[in-house]
């Protein structure tokens, strides 16, 4: 079989080292999104479609945007740190422990693994017999077998989003009050300039890349 996964893994490693070595933080953010796309492709090829979907939407979508939003508030370039031994040792030990932990795991796609013999066949058979109206096994497990668990998770996410909205909504309501002095300052700097800016919304200098695109 053609080693598609191997090539994707090599690209993943190259991207990871590039993210670490890159000092321009914008480029590092872009490479992080690329890393997530690579991981999502790998997950899809390993038939973990739902994990891949989460990886693509969270990793390549929202977290890249969050990193960019952080970049708008912080520096553009990373400060060069002197080489220190202790963090390298900690990282190597942690990575080694994780690698040792994978030794016990069954091989990928192993039909003889314990998890493929104890519970999974029951769920698959139950999906076929008890829940005929739900065609997908994952949906059955999440929505029916573990329905209350999923309900609790949804409640947690709802509470978290309520908290975020309480934090952000308060600031948004205050913003027009902040903007009011700005408006008065805009008026005092000169109305003709403002009118000109509003008339020619497309600056000929800065409009270059949009024309090219």
């Amino acid at each position, binding site marked *: 079989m053609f080693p598609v996964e191997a090539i994707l893994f090599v690209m993943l490693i190259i991207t990871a080292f590039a993210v670490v070595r890159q000092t321009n933080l914008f480029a590092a953010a*872009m*490479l992080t999104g690329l890393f997530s796309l690579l991981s999502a492709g790998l997950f899809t090829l390993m038939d973990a479609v739902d994990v891949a979907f989460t990886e693509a939407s969270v990793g390549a979508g929202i977290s890249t945007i969050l990193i960019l939003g952080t970049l708008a508030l912080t520096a553009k370039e990373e400060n060069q740190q002197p080489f220190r031994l202790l963090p390298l040792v900690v990282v190597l030990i942690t990575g080694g422990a994780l690698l040792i932990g994978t030794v016990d795991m069954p091989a990928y796609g192993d039909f003889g693994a314990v998890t493929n013999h104890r519970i999974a066949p029951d769920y698959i058979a139950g999906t076929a017999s008890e829940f005929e109206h739900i065609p997908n096994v994952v949906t059955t497990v999440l929505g029916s077998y573990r329905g209350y668990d999923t309900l609790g998770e949804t409640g947690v996410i709802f509470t978290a989003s309520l908290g975020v909205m309480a934090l952000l909504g308060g600031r948004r309501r205050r913003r027009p009050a902040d903007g009011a002095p700005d408006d008065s300052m805009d008026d005092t700097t000169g109305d003709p300039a403002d009118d000109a*800016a509003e008339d020619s919304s497309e600056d000929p200098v800065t409009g270059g890349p949009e024309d090219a695109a």
Partner: protein
Amino acid sequence: MFWIATVGILITMVLALARALKGPTVFDRILAVNMFGTATVLLICVAGFQMGMQTTAGEVIADSRPEFVDMALVYALVNFVGVIAVLKFVRFGSLGHDDRRADQQDQTGHQDPTGQQDPRGPG
């Protein structure tokens, strides 16, 4: 037949990755990541038509997985929205910007938040 398509997509991915690593300007990197996302979408589509579905007994119950195409469509949407957000960041310097303030910024001069010399320069 699908192997040829896979090889072509992988070559495209390698080239896009090289451009994202080298990329002298900001727009090179953005375009490279966008291109890479498109290549991922195509790879998922092709993989869906390559992968079979087997039962635990090893019996083949489906030759291909055409539902991967639906997922690839959603990937394309995520890719598109992400690139729009990144371009907005590059253009205005922040994501939650005010339109009036952005016009004022354009008037005074384009602020480049990415630390590169001139993103619209040659090359």
